[in-house]
C-alpha cells in the first residue's frame, strides 16, 4: 500500500468525492490559490474552479451559516476553518441552526455538511490557535464529531462524513498533517461511530483519539517489551461514541485510562467513564478509572509550557504504570 500523509489523505478524500458528486463543494478562507492555511486544498482550485472551491472573505459566521443553508437545500458543503478556534465565531450557525434544523422542523430537513477544522497544540500558536474544543462541540445533539488519528482513518472517515446526512465537525490535528500512513488507492469508507483497536492488549485499556492515539501507541509499544500489555482504543468518532467498544475492552482488561488533549474540566473523558460506570464493565474494574487530559489552562506560547499543558508520552506512561501497579 502506498504511504501518504494525513494531509494528502484528507485532500484526496475531498478531491475524489468532488469528482463523484457535483453537489460537494469546499468553502473557506484562502482555500484557492493559497491552498488553505495548512495546504490541504492545494491544487483543488485548478481542477474544480472558483465556484466549487469557494474562497470567502474572513467571515466565519457566514461560512458556516452558508454551508448550513446550502446543505438544507441539497448541496453537500465542506467548510474549512483555518483553525478550530474560529468555530467559536460560528457556533451560532453550527449549534443553533445546523444542529437543530432537522429536529425543530419535525424531521423534515437534512443538513449534510462537514466543517473541517485543524485543532490542537504543539505549534507554538498559543492560546487562540491551539485549542481542542471537541468537548464543546460534542455537547450539542444533532452534531457528530469525528477526529481521525491516522491518514488511513482520515480518508475513510472524511468520505463517510461527506456522505452522512448530518452536520459533522471533522477535527484534524495540526501535528498529524505531516504524518504518513498506508492508504489504499481509491474509494473506501470507515463508518462513523465505530471505534478501532489500534493496539490490542490485556492489562489496561487506553481510550483516546486524535494525536493522543499516536502518543499512546508509542507508549504501548514501549511497555510491551516489559510485559505490560496496553490496549489502545481509538474512538475515531467522539459523538456518537462507540460505547460498546469501550465496554468490551474494559471487560477484557479491567483497567481504564482515558487520554485527551482537550482540557480536563468538562472534557469527554468524563463521558467515557460514565459509560463504564453505568455498564456491566464496571464490575470488571480492578482499579479506579483515571483520566489524563489537558491542564485547565489556555495553551501557553513557551514551548516547555505548551508541552506541559497537554499530556505527553511520559505522562501517559507514568499514568499507565501507576494504574497497573495498583497505586490508586
Amino acid at each position, binding site marked *: 500500500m502506498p504511504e501518504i500523509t494525513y494531509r494528502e489523505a484528507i485532500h484526496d478524500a475531498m478531491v475524489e468525492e468532488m469528482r463523484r458528486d457535483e453537489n460537494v463543494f469546499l468553502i473557506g478562507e484562502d482555500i484557492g490559490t493559497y491552498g488553505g492555511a495548512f495546504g490541504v486544498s492545494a491544487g483543488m482550485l485548478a481542477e474544480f474552479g472558483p465556484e466549487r472551491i469557494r474562497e470567502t472573505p474572513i467571515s466565519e459566521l457566514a461560512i458556516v*451559516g452558508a454551508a448550513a443553508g446550502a446543505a438544507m437545500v*441539497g*448541496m453537500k458543503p465542506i467548510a474549512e476553518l483555518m483553525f478550530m478556534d474560529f468555530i467559536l465565531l460560528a457556533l451560532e450557525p453550527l449549534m443553533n441552526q445546523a444542529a437543530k434544523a432537522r429536529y425543530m422542523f419535525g424531521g*423534515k430537513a437534512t*443538513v449534510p455538511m462537514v466543517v473541517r477544522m485543524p485543532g490542537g497544540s504543539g505549534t507554538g500558536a498559543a492560546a487562540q490557535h491551539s485549542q481542542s474544543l471537541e468537548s464543546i462541540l460534542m455537547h450539542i445533539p444533532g452534531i457528530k464529531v469525528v477526529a481521525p488519528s491516522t491518514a488511513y482513518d482520515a480518508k475513510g472517515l472524511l468520505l463517510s462524513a461527506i456522505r452522512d446526512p448530518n452536520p459533522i465537525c471533522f477535527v484534524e490535528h495540526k501535528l498529524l498533517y505531516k504524518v504518513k500512513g498506508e492508504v489504499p488507492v481509491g474509494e473506501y469508507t470507515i463508518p462513523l461511530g465505530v471505534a478501532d483497536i489500534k493496539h490490542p492488549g490485556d492489562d489496561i485499556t487506553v481510550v483516546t483519539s486524535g494525536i493522543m492515539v499516536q502518543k499512546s501507541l508509542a507508549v504501548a509499544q514501549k511497555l510491551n517489551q516489559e510485559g505490560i500489555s496496553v490496549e489502545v482504543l481509538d474512538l475515531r468518532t467522539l459523538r*456518537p461514541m462507540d460505547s460498546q467498544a469501550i465496554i468490551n475492552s474494559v471487560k477484557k482488561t479491567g483497567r481504564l485510562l482515558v487520554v485527551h488533549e482537550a482540557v480536563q474540566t468538562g472534557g469527554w473523558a468524563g463521558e467515557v467513564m460514565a459509560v463504564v460506570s453505568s455498564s456491566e464493565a464496571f464490575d470488571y474494574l480492578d482499579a479506579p478509572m483515571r483520566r489524563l487530559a489537558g491542564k485547565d489552562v489556555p495553551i501557553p506560547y513557551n514551548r516547555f509550557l505548551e508541552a506541559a499543558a497537554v499530556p505527553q508520552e511520559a505522562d501517559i506512561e507514568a499514568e499507565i504504570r501507576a494504574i497497573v501497579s495498583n497505586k490508586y
Partner: protein
Amino acid sequence: MTTWKKEEFDNFETTDVLEKSSELGINQEKLIDMYRTMVKIRIFEEMADKQYALGKVHGTMHLSAGQEAVAVGAGFAINKGDYLLNHHRGHGHFIASGADVNKMMAEFLGKDTGYCHGRGGSMHIADVTANNLGANGIVGGGLQLAVGVGLAVQMKKTDQIVLTIFGDGAANEGIFHESLNMAAIWNLPILYLCENNQYGMSANVVRVSAKTPFKDRAAAYGIPGYYIDGNDVLAVYEFIRKAADNARSGKGPVFVEAQTYRYFGHSKSDRNLYRTKEEIDYWKSVEDPIIRFEKLLLNANLIDIQSINMIKEEMSKVIDESVTFAENSPEPDVKDVTEWVYA
C-alpha cells in the same frame, strides 16, 4: 405624531389602485385575494393572542398584526418554488406564502399535527418541502443561511430566488455585514427584505442605528437599496416584484426596507413602556395597512362593504377551525422525544 418618517420613501403612496394594479398586472381577483390574506393574518394573530391569554400556549410568540402589508406584498410577489427564510415574527409571511393555518395553529399549540410535529413552535415554523426554510429564533439567523441557499441556487442554475425577511434589529447584527458582502461579491439571487417595524424589542431603530435608513448600508456593498412604505401593500408588491425580477435575471441581490409598525407587544409579555399610547393609536388608525387597502379598494369600486364583511366572517371561520383542528390533535408521543436528532 409621525416622528418616524424621518426620511423620504422611495415609493409614492398608492392612490389610484386601478392604475397601479394594471401597471403591475394584478387583476381584481388577485387584489381581493391579497386583501383576504391580510385579513386572515390579522385574525390569526388575534386568535394566537387569545389562545395565549387562555393559557393554552406553552411557549412564546411574536405577533405581526400591523405588518400584514409587508407579508402579503412580498408573499404575492415571489414565485412558488422561491426560497423563504424569515424571522421570529413569521406567522404573516407563512400565511402569505400559502401555508396551512391548521398546521400552523397546531404547531403553535405544540401538537403532533403541526408543521414541525410540535418540536418547533411559533418561532420555528417551517415547511421545508415547500422551500420554506423556517422562521429563526436567532436574530439575523436567516441572513447567514440565505447566503448558502443563494449559492446553491446559483450553482444548480435554477431560476429561483431567495427571499430573506428580517427585522430592523437584525440589521445591527454582525452577520448583516457578512451576508450582504458575500451576496454582493458573488452576485447571489437574494432579496433582502428588512421589515422595519421601528423597534427591536424596546429599542427604537433610530436610537440604536448610527445611520438610517438601512438602504444606505446596502449602498456600501453596491447593492441597490430601497426604503419604502411597508403599510402600502401594493408598494411592497411592486418593489419586491421588481427586486425579484432583478435577482432572478442574474443581476444579484437587492435590498428593500419596508417601514411598518407592530401592534402587539414584542412577545408574550410586554408593557409597552418604550412607546406611547398615542403613537400606537396613530398607527392603528391612520396607518393601518388593512384599512388603507380597504379604502383603496372601496374607492375604486373593486369591493363593497358587504363583501368585506363576508371576507372577515369567512376568515374568522377558517381561523376558528384551525383552533378546533389544533385542539383535537394529539400531543406528540413523549417516547419519541429523541427522534430526529440525527438523520
